[in-house]
């Protein structure tokens, strides 16, 4: 049974190339980006996530909402097991696949078909399974003759088709997608929707980060709002989106520290 449990997870990321900036002890919240603090003279820390607690059960289709730098990608990386929390516990049960960038596993000078084979092997399939699955994945991409061309000739939409087809073909119990699905065209969206709906039907979990409300309505049934590395709300999609819209209409400068905000509880 797929399950995600985050308990008070924090992730602090050291940045080594930050320019010399004087940081006062308490900074006013900026609209974008996480909290910054200085660890030493040359090392700046970014509080990418702070005290994130989240429980996602099987069948959840979750959309991550938040400004750029609010912690969506970091959260996805924690869920994918790529980043270890600096504090707190992250426990994920179930076979996980994540599509966080379009360059993973891709060798630009090889053909689309070769890349599909490499991706299958990277996902842990053995040679026999890879030979069995590759045609199915190739068909799903609908890239036709382009599959024989090197990937460096592909547009980003084509790369997305390739990557998406490969990642979802394994029907993972937990599927993580980062803001990439917007790159696809409408025809692709329809195909993708069908595949992603199956996620929920098979009691699997989907977590998707996106700026597009349309995309979220298409794929998600619940939403989580992130800001400056904190979870502000988690609940049914419509309710959370409405709440978030109302919150954003408030005048800039209101101190928002994550406490005292109306937290929408999940309906039973």
């Amino acid at each position, binding site marked *: 049974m797929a399950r995600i449990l985050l308990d008070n997870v924090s992730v602090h990321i050291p940045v080594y190339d930050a320019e010399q900036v004087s940081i006062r002890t308490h900074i006013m919240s900026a609209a974008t980006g996480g909290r910054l603090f200085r660890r030493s003279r040359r090392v700046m820390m970014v509080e990418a996530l702070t005290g994130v607690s989240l429980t996602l059960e099987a069948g959840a289709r979750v959309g991550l909402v938040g400004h750029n730098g609010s912690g969506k990608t970091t959260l996805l990386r924690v869920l994918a097991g*790529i980043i270890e929390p600096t504090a707190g516990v992250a426990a994920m049960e179930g*076979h*996980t696949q*994540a599509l966080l960038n379009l360059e993973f596993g891709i*060798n630009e*000078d090889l053909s689309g078909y070769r890349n599909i084979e490499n991706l299958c092997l*990277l996902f842990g399939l053995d040679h026999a399974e890879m030979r069995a699955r590759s045609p199915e994945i190739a068909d799903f991409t609908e890239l036709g003759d382009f599959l024989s061309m090197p990937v460096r000739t592909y547009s980003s939409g084509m790369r997305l088709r390739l990557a998406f087809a*490969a990642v979802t073909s394994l029907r993972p119990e937990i599927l993580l997608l980062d803001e990439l699905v917007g790159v696809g065209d409408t025809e692709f969206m329809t195909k993708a929707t069908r595949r992603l709906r199956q996620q929920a039907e098979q009691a699997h979990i989907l977590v998707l980060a996106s700026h597009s409300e349309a995309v979220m309505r298409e794929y998600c049934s619940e939403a989580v709002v992130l800001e400056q590395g904190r979870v502000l709300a988690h609940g049914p999609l419509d309710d959370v989106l409405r709440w978030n819209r109302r919150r954003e209409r408030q005048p800039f400068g209101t101190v928002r520290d994550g406490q005292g905000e109306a937290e929408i509880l999940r309906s039973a």
Partner: protein
Amino acid sequence: MVATVSSPPSVRSKALDDFGRGLRHWRLIGRMAWQQIRLRYARSLLGPFWMTLSMAAFCLAIGILFGAILGMDLAAFLPYLTAGYTVWLLLSGVLTESTRLFLGWRPFIQGSRLPYSFYVLAMVATHLIVFAHNMVVFVVVAAVYGSGPSPLQALMALAGLAVITVNALWVGLLLGMTCARFRDFPEVINIMLQILFFLTPIVWKPVRLPDNAFVDVLMTANPFTHFVEIVRAPLLGGGASLENWLVVAAVTVTGGVATTLLFDRYRARILYWC
């Protein structure tokens, strides 16, 4: 994209656990190493054998220089040179590529849970394939001059190669980590290799001069001397000395332990250093 979630990591050592997980991908690693090499020489006539040609050209040039100008006996010198230089290319190649190892794989590191040893193993596999291509030159030279290893000695040479491979693993991991964090290191390694090429007996044969203990010490203290000897000596029909094997063993153990300790401590941060 993430490789299949594996069982929870062993408590013993993150480094060993990482290599365990990496080795499970051995087939894919071999495949990717070959793809990389073939791509580098794609659309060329000779393909990967350009590496062999390049090496042959170097050895020929040095051979003519030392033979014609310095009057060295080529029958003894050329096999010595080609064997030694092939091993040197393996050692220096691994060191050089390790300095930029993780930086080159950034999309993979940021996009998946693949073990770090995956990239180390891919690098080592690539260099072993190059080594095999370069060895062709030695085989030809040895055949021409009628000098070469007996089957037993060939096995000894292979054992030496195996030991070098094991060392390449910890070097790859250690340098990969350190050079991602401290960007001065790649330059230091570069300079070190340039100097070491001349301090290691490859284009010159060690002559034990009684009143030149300094050169003697330099040569002996240089670990590369010994790493080259354990493969070259058996290939030339002899055998590496006990001293060679002791130094190699000491370096292997020290390097392995140091890398394990450092990797266990800093593994979680490598992602941020790249």
